[in-house]
């Protein structure tokens, strides 16, 4: 892990090359996170890749409902020779959920980005194959958003069997 000072040094270099890229840095429980503007994600990722973070360990999406901007995308990067990890975070709104795809740098981002698109509706610009990956292709909505109904069927127990339509009627 880069320590808090190392994180600030990385952020400083990014600020020098891309003035509007870094929104904030966070160092919490030995985890270094750089929050980036969505437009600057690709340039920052390229810079970190050149710096030695050659492996994208994982990519996930989050929904910060009811905070705005709601949707978040996190990339966990790993510098394997130095065993250094860093997290790139970016947040977009549901109205304009566009994030540049990092498939060009790390081809392993292909399927995780499709999963984030499927579950949360974040559109990755420049992705080679932006389709659903888990849900059926004609499925409507993005089920992991916090305002998406859980779905399923009401379960009939003895305390509510007279209220729920079911086998008793």
């Amino acid at each position, binding site marked *: 892990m880069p320590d808090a000072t190392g994180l600030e040094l990385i952020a400083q270099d990014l600020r020098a090359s891309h003035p509007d890229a870094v929104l904030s840095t966070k160092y919490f429980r030995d985890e270094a996170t750089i929050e980036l503007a969505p437009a600057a994600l690709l340039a920052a990722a390229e810079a970190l890749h050149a710096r030695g973070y050659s492996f994208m360990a994982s990519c996930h999406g989050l929904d910060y409902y009811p905070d705005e901007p709601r949707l978040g995308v996190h990339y966990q990067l790993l510098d394997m020779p130095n065993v250094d990890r860093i997290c790139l975070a970016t947040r977009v709104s549901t109205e304009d959920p566009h994030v540049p795809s990092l498939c060009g740098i790390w081809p392993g981002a292909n399927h995780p980005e499709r999963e984030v698109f499927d579950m949360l509706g974040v559109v990755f610009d420049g992705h080679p194959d932006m389709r659903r990956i888990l849900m059926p292709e004609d499925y409507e909505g993005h089920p992991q958003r916090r305002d998406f109904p*859980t*779905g399923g069927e009401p379960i009939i127990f003895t305390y509510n069997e007279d209220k729920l339509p079911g086998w008793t009627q």
Partner: protein
Amino acid sequence: MEVTRSRLGPARPAEDFRIRQLRARDMLRGDIPDEELQQYVEERVLTTTLDKAVAWARGNSLFPATFGLACCAIEMMSLPGARLDIARFGFEAFRASPRQADLLILSGRVSIKMAPVVRRIYDQMLEPRWAIAMGACCSSMGVFNNYAIVPADKFMPIDVHVPGCPPRPEALMHGILRLRSKIQGDPPAGWRERYGAEGTEEVLGAADLPGTNAINVFQSGETQRA
């Protein structure tokens, strides 16, 4: 209370095989008197209806499709093993093709992406066919009661539901035996009647069969007609 013991089976003592052979030879020659012939036939011929005989055979030779969905499939897989040994009942031959199977065991959760696939496998099976919903997930969605899972009754007819999470293999065995008694006891209680699906059989109608319009190339002069 006095206990009387009586011998089971025919009243006459058991005959030697040699005697029976000689009796059969006499019968073929016509040397046996009528009453004895009558008794001989009654002892050896079992009468039943063809439907009952067919149902008996069907119920005792179910061929499940090799089809596992989730953790219930692990329990299902232990059924043909040595400990539970469902071969005792004649259900051990899991067929790799749905065309050769007549029982579909839905062993696990069915997601809405998998449901059309399951339905297609069921459609590919030849009739008569049966389906068992094994476990809570494919009967009532179980712990996966969310947007992704669909209960089996919504997209295909189910004959037996086996509850449990997962059901023990003995429970599935019991379910298959219940299905057997259902098949043997009441063969027409199939899914078409229960789901009101009469007339949906996938058979060729008379118009589709090669009939008078077909050309028999082996008949001389027939090819001139074309």
